[in-house]
């Protein structure tokens, strides 16, 4: 019983074997190339930070979801990152505080959570993202949505669908046109999130019922949202949504769900979720948010960003293009092999006479200075 489980991986963690790892490399490179092309500079924050700096940077970040332990050096609590956006926020507010705005940063790295999310037991994910710091305007949101779509297309995702949301909508309405008992706000948000009409009535949110119907394809949903719009409090938001949608053009199907809050812990006026054909669940998520200042009278800074979680794309895309592999027999000319590698060949050198090129997956064999098909 003891030794049998020695090689078991913990729940929600897995190895990426060559086929998947190669696909992951292609995806990461494609996404980062697109972001780099749009002027986003890559940063690489550390894997572990003080829990306090991870938790304090944005409202709504849950340190409970992080792996935490005590630092033997400082005796303070450390946390493994569960979302790199927070780290980029820290960088923007500290080391790059003096850098000109808008500041464009991108990143790629593994993130871990102490528990899986709902039905998905995965605890380690690859997060690829871009943050546009210093702006949360309609123009910034439009740039980030368009960038995310371009990056995912480059990575090979097809049939993209973008779902817009207005994360602070309920708070805005509750504070003005549709007054709500502060004690009830949480219940109303919960039932709106579950789209539970019966539950919403029971929670005392009758006035919010029309929001449930303002979901679906953008134009139809906006028309219904405009009907709810008591006193025009939402006019500027609706105009903003239309402008962002125009940026996307016809490259993705666009829907609106004004009360979606799943995965939007810290976003402010605008949020979006990206889905791709053949991928169960969301593949990317982003929106506008505020980076908290480091204190000392500093001011919060607006920002817009997107995080892509491309692990699920692997199932759809793992079979990459067939690649040639050249077998180098014992005693081959090393200079020739080096020259071939320089022009793009992949080679496998024999270690002994017993190596079988076919069994090792080779497609070609080197004869003298010439690769021949096996």
């Amino acid at each position: 019983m003891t030794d049998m489980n020695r090689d078991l991986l913990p729940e929600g963690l897995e190895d990426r074997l060559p086929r998947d790892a190669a696909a992951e490399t292609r995806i990461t490179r494609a996404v980062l190339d697109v972001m780099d092309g749009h002027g986003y500079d890559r940063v690489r924050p550390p894997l572990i930070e003080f829990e306090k700096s991870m938790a304090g940077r944005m409202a709504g970040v849950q340190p409970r979801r992080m792996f935490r332990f005590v630092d033997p050096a400082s005796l303070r609590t450390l946390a493994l990152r569960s979302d790199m956006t927070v780290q980029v926020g820290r960088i923007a507010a500290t080391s790059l505080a003096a850098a000109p705005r808008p500041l464009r940063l991108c990143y790629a790295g593994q993130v871990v959570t102490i528990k899986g999310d709902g039905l998905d037991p995965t605890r380690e994910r690859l997060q690829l993202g871009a943050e546009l710091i210093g702006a949360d305007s309609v123009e910034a949101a439009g740039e980030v949505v368009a960038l995310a779509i371009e990056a995912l297309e480059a990575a090979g995702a097809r049939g993209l669908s973008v779902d817009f949301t207005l994360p602070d909508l309920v708070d805005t309405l509750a504070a003005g046109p549709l007054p709500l008992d502060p004690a009830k706000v949480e219940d109303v948000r919960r039932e709106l999130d579950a789209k539970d009409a019966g539950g919403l009535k029971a929670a005392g949110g009758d006035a919010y019922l029309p929001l449930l119907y303002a979901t679906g394809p953008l134009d139809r949903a906006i028309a219904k949202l405009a009907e709810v719009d008591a006193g025009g409090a939402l006019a500027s938001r609706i105009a903003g949504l239309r402008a962002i949608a125009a940026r996307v053009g016809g490259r993705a199907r666009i829907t609106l769900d004004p009360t979606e809050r799943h995965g939007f812990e810290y976003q402010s006026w605008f949020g979006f979720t990206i889905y791709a054909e053949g991928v169960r669940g969301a593949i990317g998520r982003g929106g506008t948010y505020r980076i908290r200042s480091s204190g000392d009278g500093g001011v919060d800074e607006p920002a817009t960003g997107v995080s892509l979680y491309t692990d699920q794309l692997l199932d759809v895309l793992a079979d990459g293009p067939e690649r040639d592999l050249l077998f180098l027999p014992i005693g081959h000319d090393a200079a020739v092999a080096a020259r071939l590698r320089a022009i793009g060949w992949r080679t496998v050198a024999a270690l002994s006479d017993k190596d079988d090129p076919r069994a090792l997956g080779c497609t070609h064999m080197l004869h003298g200075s010439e690769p021949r098909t096996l």
Partner: protein
Amino acid sequence: MTKPLTFAVPKGRILDEALPVMARAGIVPEAGFHDKGNRALSFDTVGGDVRIIRVRAFDVATFVAHGAAQAGIVGSDVIEEFAYPELYAPVDLEIGHCRLSVAEPVATAGLPSAATHLRVATKYPNITRRHYEAQGVQAECIKLNGAMELAPSLGLSGRIVDLVSTGRTLKDNGLVETYEIMQVSARLIVNRAALKTDSRVAELVEKFRAVASGTSA
């Protein structure tokens, strides 16, 4: 995207009331669905691109939450028990009404209790735990799949949390309803991602919404 939509319905209580509602929304199962001897679990519908699967109520929620079925019908008790974030319950079908309640033996019901720990037999451990946690009580839930009413008399637990419609079963087993946790009715449920990526799911929701508002008005 020519794959048919999969619609999950629960076996038993709710199904008889759900079939007419489904029919008005345009989902009519093939004849074999009503044949008691038929062991199939998956059925075609008349003239639609919808496939119906018939599973246990709790499994309806699981199939839809995982996206294996795009939509289904299930009681709000099941939705609340799982609280899957992947589930939307956009339409209250106003059928299958009952309530989820605490019941205790007649002899001990109503006695003042200062317990901080209780044993409860139930099919709904999550709802039960949440209900008692809100009152500062640790509830030790004993998960049963049926015949909860036996538990108090055999000393398995002091009380039960179960669905009550007429209260007849409770009475016959010497129990009395002491607290109503929630009202239950059947809901149309859909998978979150399916609703956002497949326009047919949104159309289905619209149809059921029209049917439901027609019946309740």
